[in-house]
């Protein structure tokens, strides 16, 4: 592992995934192949290790985890989790670490021409078994983080999220080290999403590789990923990049930024039944789908965002990609996580709509 604490996204690619984690490496790859991604930087696994060493938290974590194999496993895990979270919440970053992280943030602000630029702080797990997806959804991510103080706080919280009861139980069950491992963090400029969604460079259901499928909705992509709305759907012929099918749905809900974090809002009536993409935007996304697939050499499942302020075509961003397979690439764990979240959402809906 290298020793750099912070790396710009254009300095990383797949070959650095053991330093910055899967998510960061993936963004670097996208940048390399010429896909438009939002500005950002990576906090490396080396930074995490340095933090553990300097703050002596590493030893304290080991201590807290001793004897956890004993009976009353859940109680023990809960206690250990509380202890470790306490350690992180009181920890202070060394001068070097602070400078490195805030230096990255400052450079980002300069590039974007703004101070205190709003960022997403996302954990980027370094998988021990070489399979990034096995950690997907395990650790926390924070949206709409603003200012130096918040960024440092959320960095610590991201690291600490390796020690939720859930994450530890997951590792324990798979015989992985309970103490976790180095973790990367992606700090990405938030795009003020007018519209967001997912794209598939092959039909994910039929496997038809002559098709590109886009699904989108108003606001942040979480609305679709969390299943809050029926998205609009665009189907393109991949060779000719011609729109062959367009379904506009009634999109009643959207997710937007709140003062802190995000919130659910109803879509104004006038926009509910209107297409969330222009034909030009949709076509640009289809082009990108083809580009990404070409560079990766296999069909891709990617997330995209349309910025509300920038003009076309600068407003189109790709934020994530992974291979698509007909049977799905998500692990059983990821699907379960998703369904559990959806159940919680269902409870809220039953509760909320009178």
């Amino acid at each position, binding site marked *: 592992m290298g020793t750099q604490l912070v790396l710009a996204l254009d300095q990383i690619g797949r070959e650095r995934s053991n330093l910055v984690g899967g998510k960061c490496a993936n963004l670097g790859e996208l940048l390399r192949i010429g896909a438009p991604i939002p500005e950002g930087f990576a906090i490396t696994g080396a930074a995490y290790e340095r933090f553990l060493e300097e703050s002596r938290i590493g030893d304290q974590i080991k201590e807290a985890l001793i004897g956890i194999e004993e009976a009353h496993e859940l109680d023990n895990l809960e206690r250990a989790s509380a202890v470790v979270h306490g350690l992180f919440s009181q920890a202070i970053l060394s001068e070097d670490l602070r400078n490195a992280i805030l230096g990255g943030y400052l450079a980002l602000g300069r590039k974007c021409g703004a101070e205190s630029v709003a960022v997403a702080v996302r954990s980027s797990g370094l998988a021990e078994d070489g399979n990034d997806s096995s950690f997907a959804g395990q650790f926390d991510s924070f949206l709409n983080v603003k200012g130096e103080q918040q960024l440092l706080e959320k960095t610590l919280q991201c690291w600490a999220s390796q020690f939720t009861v*859930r994450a530890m139980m997951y590792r324990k069950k798979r015989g992985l080290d309970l103490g976790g491992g180095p973790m990367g963090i992606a700090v990405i400029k938030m795009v003020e999403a007018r519209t967001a969604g997912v794209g598939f460079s092959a039909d994910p*259901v039929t496997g038809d590789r002559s098709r590109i499928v886009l699904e989108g909705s108003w606001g942040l992509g979480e609305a679709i990923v969390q299943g809050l709305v029926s998205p609009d759907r665009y189907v393109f012929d991949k060779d000719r990049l011609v729109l062959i099918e367009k379904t506009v749905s009634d999109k009643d809900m959207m997710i937007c930024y709140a003062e802190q974090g995000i919130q659910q809002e109803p879509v104004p009536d006038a926009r509910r039944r209107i297409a969330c993409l222009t034909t030009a935007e949709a076509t640009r996304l289809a082009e990108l789908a083809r580009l990404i697939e070409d560079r990766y050499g296999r069909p891709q499942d990617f997330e995209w965002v349309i910025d509300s302020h920038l003009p076309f075509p600068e407003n189109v961003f790709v934020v994530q990609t992974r291979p698509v397979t007909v049977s799905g690439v998500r692990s059983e764990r990821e699907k379960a996580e998703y*369904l*559990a979240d959806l*159940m*919680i959402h269902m*409870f809220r809906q039953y509760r909320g709509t009178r």
Partner: protein
Amino acid sequence: MKNLQFYIDFDPELDFQATPIWLLDISHCVPPWTPLFAWYWGNLFAFGGGGAKADASLPFDRVTLMRLRNGGVYYGFSLVEDAAEIAKREQGFKNFILPYLEDYDANWHGVLETELMGHYSRLKQFDVDTCSVTDLWEHVEDCFRVTRRMSYLHVLGMYITWLPYMLLEYMCKQFANIDDTHPTFLKLVTGFDNKIFQVDKKLLELAKDARARGVDACLMECESAPAAFATLEQTDVGRQWLDSLWTFLREDGWRMPRRAEFIEPTWIEDQTPAIEMIKMYLKQTDGCDLDANRERQRSEREHAEREVLASIPAVQRDHFVKLLRIAQRAGSYAEGHSYYCEDYCFSLTRRAFMAIGRRYAADHAINEPSDIFFLLPEEILKVLYAPQMYDLRPIVNGRRQERQRWCEEGNPPFLLKEGTSQADVGEHLRLLGDPIFYKALMGSMPTPNPDLKADLYGVIGSCGVAEGYARVVHSEKDLREVQPGDILVAANTAPSWTPVFHLIRGAIIDRGGSLAHAAVVGREFGIPVVLNVLDGTRKIRSGQKVRVDANLGAVFFLEE
């Protein structure tokens, strides 16, 4: 005679202060329970089931309180309002449900059957007749422990199976615009076997065997099991058939006419209900072949899956399919769990108490062994070592009379605090989001369509239309009156009623949702079922010609 008082009796002052809405558990305690069973449910089931609910940590629903009133149990709920508590409960809920969503089979399938059947096999081996009094009471305590564990697993199983079912309906509403009364949705969840069906199939085999051996006429003519057995004992074929019957009963006879009560004998003690079920199979000429049905249902189901899947966004499909596979077990669990949970556990507990009852009756503390069900454990324990010194008959007689009065009066379906209306009940349940109440016990409320000019409105449990003569059935004893082609009318039905579905053309049920017994079984048999008509058993009389339209959710009286 002083009224029986339980410390968990409904107390209007205190309990209405706790929550304004209390619901009668119509599928378990109508007609009213005996005092001992009420104690048993109100303590042991409340403890075990309450534990499972606490562990499930439903975000908006803290607990199901159980309070007794005249041999009925009322459930009260505790709606969580505080945002911080909700957030904490949501995390707790996620931790609870995740392993079952990730791998339902590994984390659940087999646990219920394997663990509980292990307990039952230990209890079964205990000889209740030759043991000492001390050991007999230890055995009763063992039954109590098993009951608590059974209750825990019973309720846990409902949450991990029925919450996915509720989410499936939620997603279907969201993306395909169909709910759990829509034919396509119902096809998604139809065509699955369960333990109760397997047991009933053995009864069907016994009926076929009786016909093959030529002993069917003897069974049809006899009024009771002993009369039939006396005749059958006289011939070789008769004795051979009886051997098969006993093989069946020793394994699967641990069931009683009522699912939740132990005053009536098990099939091992009184074989008449089993014979009646076999007679029901003998009555039918063109019986429903569930195995053959299943093939058709499978192809309809696959068609429905494709149809629904087409309207699910691509990004959701992976999850949706995983969810669908779990939710499709909801019906099998709704039926099958009765075998592993109620039937075996309550039958074995009955056996233990009857053994005490026989000893007390021999010592003249009570008149007959089943008097024991009118005493509470503390009262039984008080005289355990010297029943001959006490005459408990006045207590028993008083309580028998009191229960008679309870039965005549019946328990109201809701106990509502002043200022609360029946219309608030459905809303209250929806807010709680508990599938046990929302999808099985209560179901959604019907929306009457005045244009139809129907006589009753309900919700659809199984699609189709049928006409026939109504047969109002109040308890299992009335089942023998059901004729082929009848329309069954009941407050609710129980798993032990399943064979009657071979005879009937349709069913009209007072109370229940798409996971209620009648709905699940109706779908598997492919006959129309309308539920939640609320007072069908009062408005319809036996012999009246009716049409049940389970495509519209309506019942029409074809004659006055």
